[in-house]
């Protein structure tokens, strides 16, 4: 620590931009994701392995009666897994870990806005979820004889809404999570409810009608509905609009909850 001469007064200052700040943060988070085995398993391995384990179960289901094929069940399911694990669960861990290490507090002393901190940290996980979904769509087309989507705009819309919503829900859950270890517990409710009630592991078409109509209101249900509808093309404009509205409502609620209740510092 020498060199008093190196201390100079500011001259011409380059100003940071939101995009530059986001990129800087995202790059660091990507490095961290690559260095954490646990996060890699959750983000990469689990979402890609689960559809295979589901395959035999789906083969037993009466999917034909519901007017579906095995591929039409597995493809939305795989995208659902990707959203739940690569995006949601991974991000709950990321937000909690950064908070406990006081990284979030430190970042808030700088020029980053709060929304930029959470978005920048989310970028690698959200990108992983997006790439996985595209990979799964391509894989299903090649391996499960899934035809080209009839209403691709609905599938794209559903996927994008799902990515944003899962990131926001991760922020909500992280606010309720004390440690990285307890994140495994706090993420369970949404993961389980979505697998059972949102048509991820069990298609909603196979549930009793009145139960199905309640389950349609769960956060991930509209996403799965839009993705499946995008491929089958059987969704009416009314149904599609309802699903979009439900997904938007959950996203707005989650963003509000994050703004209101997100914890930037560890509890003492």
């Amino acid at each position, binding site marked *: 620590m020498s060199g008093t001469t190196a201390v100079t007064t*500011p001259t011409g200052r380059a100003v940071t931009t939101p995009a530059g700040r986001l990129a800087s943060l995202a790059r660091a988070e990507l490095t961290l994701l690559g260095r954490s085995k646990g996060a890699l398993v959750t983000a990469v391995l689990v979402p890609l392995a689960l559809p295979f384990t589901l395959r035999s179960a789906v083969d037993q289901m009466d999917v034909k009666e519901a007017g579906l094929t095995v591929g039409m069940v597995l493809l939305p399911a795989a995208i659902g897994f990707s959203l739940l694990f690569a995006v949601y669960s991974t991000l709950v861990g990321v937000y909690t870990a950064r908070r406990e290490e006081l990284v979030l507090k430190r970042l808030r*002393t700088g020029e980053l806005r709060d929304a930029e901190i959470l978005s920048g940290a989310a970028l690698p996980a959200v990108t992983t979820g997006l790439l996985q979904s595209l990979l799964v769509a391509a894989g299903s087309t090649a391996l499960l004889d899934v035809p080209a989507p009839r209403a691709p705009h609905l599938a794209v819309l559903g996927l994008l809404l799902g990515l944003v919503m899962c990131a926001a829900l991760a922020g909500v859950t992280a606010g309720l999570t004390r440690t990285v270890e307890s994140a495994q517990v706090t993420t369970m409710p949404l993961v389980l409810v979505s697998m059972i009630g949102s048509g991820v592991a069990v298609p909603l078409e196979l549930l009793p009608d009145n139960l199905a109509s309640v389950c349609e209101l769960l956060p991930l249900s509209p996403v799965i509905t839009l993705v499946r509808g995008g491929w089958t093309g059987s969704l009416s404009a009314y149904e599609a609009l309802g699903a979009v509205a439900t997904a938007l409502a959950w996203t707005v609620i989650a963003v509000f909850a994050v703004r209101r209740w997100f914890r930037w510092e560890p509890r003492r």
Partner: protein
Amino acid sequence: MDRNEHEHVIEVTDLRRVYGGGFEAVRGISFSVRPGEIFALLGTNGAGKTSTVELLEGLARPSGGQVRILGHDPYTERAVVRPRTGVMLQEGGFPSELTVAETARMWAGCVSGARPTEEALALVGLAGKTDVRVKQLSGGERRRLDLALALLGEPEVLFLDEPTTGLDAEGRRDTWELVRALRDAGTTVLLTTHYLEEAEGLADRLAILHEGRIAAAGTPAEVTASQPSRISFELPEGYFLGDLPALGELGVIGHEVDGRVVRLRTRELQRAATGVLVWAERAGVELRGLDARSASLEEAFLGIAREASGSALEKEHVA
């Protein structure tokens, strides 16, 4: 001119901070810091230093009162203030799995007008540690990394929350030298510390915080001068306190006797010391353990702590 608000880089007025549980950590403090000044907030743990600094940094909204940094509210006008300030938190704040270079690069991407990261790391002596993961750094090295990042944007105002805690003696001296150099280059520095010698040696002005209030403020010399000087000695065998000249006439304002040891407090050290020595000369006795000294900041600090709440604080700082 002093009253002109543009003369002050940091202006704090009747600042209060009440936590969720109702605990009032900051209880109405006011002070101001001029450009290019090093200002220290001195206090024991729990005095309210960090609670205060976090309000100055704009991390939380005050429960009452007002903060102005460079004329702006650091909480509501974050976008205006942040590019001009640098912050070093009391602890941590870096992902443990990133290397020093990666951490600095991440931070540099979020700082307007950032100097080269190598330059900032070299300033704090971490140039040789760029490929080391943060989790493998010693506590002192982590403090220095934090300082390097606070300096990345060449800030006009620097907040340092206990910058030398955890550093060894050499690291502490290096940090002091660096902070002085920054001040000489025009940076305004607000730091907290519980090291008295740090406040005394480094700060142009300081405030002693105690239980959320400012107990004393001014230059180190002013704060010290508010406390009495002390004389102590052993009474010779066969003599009693009453054998001394009338203490009040020597300018002594207080005294204690502990066995044979006498301690006198005075604001007129020369007069009291002369009185005692002339008496000893005339009586032909030797005053063993004779000690006469002006108050130090430490005594001022202990005096304030003692006045307010007794011995718990005293132990910590005498030890």
